[in-house]
């Protein structure tokens, strides 16, 4: 693919989080990938979706985040290569896979739709951003495939890192794990852009403490390929405090930003709106004026044509909301009302915390609302923290987790020897055990403010109204 060539000194980008992000001349393919329409589309998809309605600075895109993830991934690689030196098996294996890791880090978000997590959930099982990312990478008609192939990088292997089925877990860990480049970037960037400073942690020290250990669930037997058992760990002596800080940063960002009551209210509104649109699309009844690429998404999901996908972004989705906001209220009452409310930042729903409600009562509440004629997905929506797109902070250490849970959910501490098993951080840190025990589910029910009178007696009966609306 013709385009910008990196000069001998490398290509450097200024970045508000990393200060400078450097692409080495040997990584020309990274610049080529960056210039593809699939990647440039990410300029028009914001990282935090509707959070800017709460934190007005949160306008940063998935484009800048992806560049940041690439930079952290290459810095993790540099740390490990330096630590293990030229003669080590870890170095040899990482050098073989370095270009795959860098490509996967850069491309990991290209399958996200506009207002990603709502539009994905509204589509049932017909869309999954990881599958879409893998599809875009392995699509022989697309620009990405050609660039990877020309650079002698196997697109299928890059896709395996992203869908986490790559046989070498260490490689997946760099891009997606409890200690990954993705999380390292989004916490710092979201913190900076929202102005919520709790997301800051000591990234330099965390990088400095990275090492390789054996998966706690592997037996380490002689018949096992040792490379397959390698996991990204933190050096126990150096990294404990930095890891605690990372987890605390994430915990506070979850409560302050990602699960903010107002933000989540707009997310529930969009989710309900998109679900209505998806239902209309299955009956072929989407309003005729709906932009073509939006129709294409609701009709075909992950099978939508590439040319449509490249224009399916927040611009076209907001275009659809603008069209829907002008519909006749008699034909498309909810679509019209919710679109108009979103565009003018009006809240349709009143939030009530149901975090302290027992599950049995929560079921009774939902059952009771339906029996009162209030429709889930229009008149009310349950916002359950478990739906968060971010990996759980609470689950890692619970009740002496089994081998699978420690392997999957815990940050692992090691001594730097790749043949020694990593140990879950919660076994070494009182702070981590305390966080894990301090479970704070943030579950809310959002009820249409115009229908509140119908629901009030039920909310009082279940003790939800005692604290009043939030």
């Amino acid at each position, binding site marked *: 693919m013709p385009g910008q060539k990196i000069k001998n000194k490398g290509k450097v980008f200024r970045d508000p989080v990393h200060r400078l992000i450097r692409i080495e001349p040997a990584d020309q393919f990274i610049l080529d990938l960056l210039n593809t329409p699939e990647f440039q589309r990410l300029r028009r998809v914001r990282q935090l979706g509707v959070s800017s309605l709460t934190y007005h600075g949160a306008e940063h895109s998935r484009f800048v985040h992806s560049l940041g993830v690439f930079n952290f991934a290459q810095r993790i690689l540099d740390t490990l290569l330096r630590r293990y030196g030229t003669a080590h098996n870890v170095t040899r294996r990482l050098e073989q896979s370095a270009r795959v890791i860098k490509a996967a880090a850069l491309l990991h978000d290209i399958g996200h739709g506009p207002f990603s997590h709502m539009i994905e959930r509204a589509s049932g099982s017909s869309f999954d951003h990881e599958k879409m990312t893998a599809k875009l990478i392995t699509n022989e008609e697309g620009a990405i495939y050609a660039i990877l192939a020309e650079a002698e990088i196997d697109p299928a292997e890059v896709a395996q890192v992203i869908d*986490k089925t790559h046989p070498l877990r260490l490689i997946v860990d760099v891009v997606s794990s409890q200690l990954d480049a993705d999380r390292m970037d989004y916490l710092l960037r979201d913190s900076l852009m929202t102005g919520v400073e709790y997301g800051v942690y000591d990234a330099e020290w965390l990088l400095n403490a990275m090492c390789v250990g054996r998966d706690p669930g592997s037996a380490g037997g002689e018949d096992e390929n040792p490379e397959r058992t390698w996991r990204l760990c933190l050096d126990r002596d150096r990294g404990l405090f930095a890891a605690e800080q990372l987890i605390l940063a994430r915990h506070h960002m979850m409560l302050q930003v990602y699960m903010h009551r107002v933000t989540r209210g707009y997310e529930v509104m969009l989710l309900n709106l998109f679900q209505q649109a998806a239902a209309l699309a299955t009956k072929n009844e989407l309003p005729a004026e709906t932009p073509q690429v939006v129709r294409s998404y609701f009709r075909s999901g992950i099978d939508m044509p590439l040319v449509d996908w490249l224009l399916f972004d927040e611009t076209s989705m907001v275009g659809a909301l603008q069209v829907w906001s002008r519909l006749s209220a008699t034909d498309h009452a909810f679509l019209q009302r919710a679109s108009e409310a979103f565009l003018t930042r009006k809240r349709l729903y009143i939030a009530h915390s149901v975090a302290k409600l027992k599950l049995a009562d929560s079921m009774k509440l939902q059952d009771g609302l339906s029996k009162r004629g209030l429709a889930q997905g229009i008149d009310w929506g349950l916002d359950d923290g478990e739906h968060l797109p971010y990996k759980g902070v*609470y689950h890692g250490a619970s009740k002496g987790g089994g081998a699978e849970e420690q392997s999957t959910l815990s940050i692992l501490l090691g001594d730097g020897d790749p043949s020694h098993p990593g140990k879950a951080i919660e076994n070494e840190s009182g702070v981590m055990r305390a966080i894990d025990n301090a479970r704070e589910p943030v579950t809310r029910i959002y009820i249409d403010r115009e229908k509140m009178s119908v629901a009030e007696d039920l909310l009082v009966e279940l003790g939800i109204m005692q604290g009043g609306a939030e």
Partner: protein
Amino acid sequence: MSRTVELLRLLCVCERVEGRKKLQKLVHILREAGHPFAYRYGYHFHGPFSTELKGEIDALVEEKLIIEHPGESDFGDFIQYTYRPGEGASALLDSLGHRSPVAWASLAKDLNAKSAQELEAISTIIYLIRNGCTTESLLDRFGQLKPYLAGQFEGASKYAQFLTAARSKQLA
């Protein structure tokens, strides 16, 4: 609500599930067979795993709607947990009007009679197929990810392909 109800019904149907891994894979396979267990799964070192399901099991255990019993495991220092429905589970389902038999009951019982390793193999194969792995490359990919389950491949792939074909037919 529906997925929580289905999870409780699953425990009531199976009466007893041995191990967290088994419960995770059991729900994943039922979900991929088209039944309403709407938990998001990702692929991890030990195969498909859902943090959403893990969180919900913890919450149900906390409220004693599911009983979790720790026991010895064959796997080093780790604990193996057994799951049973709590005393209030059936009454709660009854009070919410969920008395009717479920369509997936016989499949769930059949799966629960298999070992955790068999379920891990079936679940992994289904995950690979769903992520576009072709029939020709399935054996290779499975061998790379689960070399210690090589002996399970033939039976597991037949089972997985039967389930995914039935699902495709259902969707067509």
